[in-house]
């Protein structure tokens, strides 16, 4: 993991592949699981959370073949910068940045799977894939969940399902989400209408970095809210169906932009392209917005993409912690803006 971050190798979900990848950046499945009768991490004693971690390590050691490509990192062994970098890569949650209840994260080599130990819940499985691949991500999470279940005594109730710290997760413990890029809906002033429609069908809308984060770079995360009374498959099917609709709406809006304001949009995306290629100072906020414009330009064929630009990975590489680990230097805000601009120039040169 350390080598990958230093070398600027990004997680699987940041690859420029997958179905509907012109709108859907990534699909994520999260499963919350707990062990029976052991107090939840925020309330547990040090020895109790250590016991949870020990059981997980034991399971990994018991089946070295099955878990050959999974690495265990105790959070206490990670530097604050490394934790931040993992957060920026969506591999851990903000909860693991500061709190440490014998917490750990298990990562698959390609970073498509992370399992958080002693986060809010004892166990949180997370699968992240590029494009609209909820079904595949679910199968992967389900697979690892089954492997863990063979060895660990899960808290499960016939009536209420998987028991979780927060009553909003009880039941399936499943949170399915997609991250979508909706520049044309935003430019044509339809985004708010679409987002409020999404909220009406019981789905939640958030910015790229989850709860409380703003919508920047036209990136929106959509996820299910309900975890009880619906089967895992139904939750995933619902989100898939809604996402397909959003993809269609966004593509329609892009066509409208092309038909009705081709010159304006060509001007906008190419100006952004110019700034990205030549600027010497850039905030991450500005970086997100410019990358969104250029990506739209490439998708619309208004910017020629000879090299198959992997703009998606820049979204994460330009973030503060990843940028610092990539350059191998501790940087203050001003230096980061300089290094970020340099990163963009080199990438697009």
């Amino acid at each position, binding site marked *: 993991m350390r080598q990958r971050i230093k070398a600027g190798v990004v997680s699987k979900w940041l690859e420029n592949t997958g179905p509907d990848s012109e709108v859907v950046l990534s699909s994520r499945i999260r499963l919350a699981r*707990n*062990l*029976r*009768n*052991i*107090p*939840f991490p*925020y*309330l547990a004693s040090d020895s109790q959370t250590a016991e949870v971690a020990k059981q997980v390590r034991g399971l990994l050691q018991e089946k070295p073949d099955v878990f050959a490509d999974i690495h265990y990192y105790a959070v206490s062994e990670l530097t604050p910068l490394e934790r931040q970098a993992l957060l920026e890569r969506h591999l851990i*949650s*903000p*909860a693991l*940045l*500061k*709190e440490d209840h014998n917490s750990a994260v298990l990562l698959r080599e390609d970073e498509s799977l992370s399992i958080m130990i002693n986060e809010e819940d004892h166990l949180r499985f997370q699968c992240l894939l590029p494009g609209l691949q909820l079904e595949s991500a679910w199968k992967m999470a*389900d697979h690892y*969940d*089954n492997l863990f*279940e*063979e060895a660990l005594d*899960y*808290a*499960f*109730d*016939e*009536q*209420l*399902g*998987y*028991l*979780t*710290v*927060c*009553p*909003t997760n*009880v*039941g*399936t413990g*499943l949170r399915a989400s997609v991250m979508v890029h909706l520049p044309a809906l935003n430019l044509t002033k339809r985004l708010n209408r679409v987002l409020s429609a999404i909220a009406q069908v019981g789905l939640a809308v958030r910015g790229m970095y989850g*709860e*409380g984060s703003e919508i920047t770079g036209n990136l929106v995360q959509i996820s299910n809210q*309900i*975890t*009880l*009374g*619906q*089967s*895992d498959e139904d*939750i995933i099917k619902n989100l898939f169906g809604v996402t397909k609709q959003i993809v269609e709406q966004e593509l329609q809006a892009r066509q409208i932009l092309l038909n009705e304001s081709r010159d304006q949009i060509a001007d906008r995306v190419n100006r952004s392209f110019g700034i990205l290629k030549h600027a010497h100072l850039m905030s991450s906020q500005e970086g997100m917005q410019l990358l969104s414009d250029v990506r739209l330009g490439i998708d619309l064929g208004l910017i020629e993409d000879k090299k198959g630009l992997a703009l998606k990975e820049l979204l994460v590489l330009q973030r503060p912690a990843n940028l610092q680990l990539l350059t191998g230097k501790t940087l203050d805000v001003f230096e980061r803006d300089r290094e970020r601009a340099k990163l963009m120039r080199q990438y697009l040169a």
Partner: protein
Amino acid sequence: MLCQECQKRPATVHLTKIINNEKQVWHLCEQCAREKEEFNFDYPPFSLQSLLSGLLNMETQTEAQPVDYPTTKIQCDNCSLTYTQFRQIGRFGCSNCYTAFSDYLFPLLRRLHGSARHVGKIPKRADSTVQLRRNLENLRRKLQQLVEREEFEKAAQVRDEIRRLEKEVQNGGEDYEAKN
């Protein structure tokens, strides 16, 4: 109410902290809350937890309705969390809390999820009768649909299957486990 830190802007962030049974209450404006290091933890000021405890306290807020709130102290015998604490923090202490507070959870779960019955994945290790009962429920639903569509032949088959499973449930699911 004004922010207790800057005394200028209205207080919009209200936070109650309970550490070792000591209660601290903060009323801050968004700006001051953001500046305070300790508020920048994993739960943002307008957290899910505070919304949840709002939902939990709804019983006491509607005056016309009889209050659905335990008069005696309800406590989880595994982790010692009390129902009152649960209402304040909106989080359970351990899996056993669900049993300890079960009499009061139904309305909350209905409000949150519109349902209080799990229909999703079941761990393979769970008691095999759980799986059996789930299958039975599915079959009963199927039977109803078939009857509505007047497909009586198929319905009869499903009915026989239901009878067989019902017998197995009575036998504690042993036959089912042996066969599967």
